[in-house]
């Protein structure tokens, strides 16, 4: 069983603070981490490997600094890593990104399963996973919460949908995107860290890949960003104190009139 896991390096958001004056989020000096939702994909892949044998290859497209994310995945237990990096890939939208990653996966070859995170916490599109599957022309199951069973030919999964779980059987190779419910991610081990430090990670670029130049980077991206706004997070609403029984009644009175004025009750 050969599993490939595409991951992304994203800004760390757990320590982000709000600017009390502007009401916007302070993003300066934020560290980068492995996209938290990709950790579930890594964990899923590692568990499958432990059960059935095989290898897990982790893949990331990004600047040379994304090597750090790949090393972290190696330290968790992945066998190999590939960095997909080239200036010509800069500014890729989800269409161009999924093209470039799909070509990288083809170059690695021989895979049975591709497992991705549900989405990245920065771009938030959830489009690259299904996009890769489409380029590779393999079936896709998104929002996978549970792997029911797997043999050499097929995998049965439960995908989380709005009002329950859809149970699907997919032939291999296929691509899954997974949600948090699937497994709690492990931490990197000391052995893994040592191994990751020694590992030479290959870099895929326009130099060593067969790529359609018209499908790369900003130029190859169908969508263009026209403008970026930073909305205020705060709404300047009313906050009332309800310190004792009497104040609770008054506060709830006010809340009910507020909801009434908005046509809710």
């Amino acid at each position, binding site marked *: 069983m050969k599993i490939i896991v595409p991951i992304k390096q994203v800004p760390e958001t757990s320590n982000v603070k709000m600017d009390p004056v502007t009401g916007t989020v302070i993003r300066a000096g934020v560290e980068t981490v492995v996209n938290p939702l990709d950790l579930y994909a890594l964990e899923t892949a590692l568990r499958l490997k432990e059960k059935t044998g095989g290898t897990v290859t982790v893949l990331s497209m990004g600047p040379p600094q994304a090597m750090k994310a790949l090393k972290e995945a190696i330290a968790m237990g992945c066998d190999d890593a590939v960095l997909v990096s080239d200036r010509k890939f800069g500014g890729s939208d989800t269409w161009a990104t999924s093209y470039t990653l799909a070509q990288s996966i083809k170059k690695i070859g021989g895979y049975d399963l591709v497992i991705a995170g549900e989405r990245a916490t920065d771009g938030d599109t959830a489009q690259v996973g299904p996009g890769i599957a489409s380029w590779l022309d393999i079936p896709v199951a998104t929002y996978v919460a549970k792997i029911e069973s797997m043999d050499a030919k097929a995998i049965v999964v439960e995908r989380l949908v709005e009002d329950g779980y859809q149970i699907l059987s997919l032939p291999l190779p296929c691509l899954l995107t997974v949600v948090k419910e699937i497994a709690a991610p492990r931490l990197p081990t000391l052995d893994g860290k040592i191994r990751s430090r020694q590992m030479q990670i290959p870099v895929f670029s326009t130099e060593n890949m067969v790529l359609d130049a018209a499908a790369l980077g900003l130029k190859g991206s169908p969508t263009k960003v026209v403008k970026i706004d930073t909305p205020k997070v705060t709404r300047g609403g009313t906050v009332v104190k309800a310190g004792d029984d009497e104040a609770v009644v008054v506060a709830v009175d006010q*809340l009910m009139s507020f909801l009434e004025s908005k046509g809710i009750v």
Partner: protein
Amino acid sequence: MSFVWTIAEQHNGKLKDVSFELLARGRKLADKLDTKLASVLIGDKVSEQAMQQLVHRGADEVYSIQDPRLENFICESYAKVLATLIKTYKPSIVLAAATSSGRTLMPYLAIKVNAGLTADCTELDIEEGTGNLLQTRPAIGGNIMATIKTPDHRPQMATVRPKSSRPLKEDATRVGKIIAVPVTADMLDGRVKVLGYRKDATDFVNLEEADIIVAGGKGLKKGDNFAMIRKLADSFKGVVGASREAVDRGWIAYPHQIGLSGKTVSPKLYIGVGISGSIQHLAGIKTSEIIVSINSDPDANLHKVADFGIVGDAFQIIPEIQRRMDKRNGGAK
């Protein structure tokens, strides 16, 4: 002039509300472009009445694709059907809902038809002069709003966040054309099989399409106290949400989780009880119309983003709200 399309969603032959929300979006765009609005409905044995409903809510045409093998959403088959239709009719814009199926189908389809796609839009408009679709969406946990266009590729594709727009009023006098598209073998993909469907045994939770959400967090102190939240949600005819802290403590199941590693919601009313309001949680609720926060900590982040906040003990405040709701609901009988 090429049309604006919306992808209708159905479950067991019944149309989902989001199908009508998309038509309201599409109607505005089609009128601005002086073109027609069509809705594509894929399923099995969907009634004529349901198709007329799409017309009454704004569609000029309905493409109906009905087949037993298309009863359930299967990404590969639905994408093949749509790719065939898009190549035949060449719409200028295709809108789908940012639901579990829309967010799977559209990126798969966009590659097949060589189109640009923007995810989870909250605003759509037409650019003056060029007629390009302007797509606005939150990114980086809702901390920025990006406006995106697709100048050189057609169709321009976008998914739209459920509940981010209101359906048009039903107009039974509207007349439209229902076009039955025959299903051919090349439109079906037999690789993936639907084996079944499992509903969350405890309760039905469709957070993305809920009008009212009452959510609980760490401040509830233990899982049993979610009973109070469920009861209040019921009296608002709403559903129960939760913060990551509550889910990680095992107080409530993951499908209830709101935030960066859970669901993104846009209800009319969100009430957060004992939720401090981490950046991750706020990312999931930012597009709610009204945010109410109940928390004993005056410095809780959720109070800062709330339209109405109460600083106090949730175990006093929630029963008090419950009493008022019981009175109202009782009085209405």
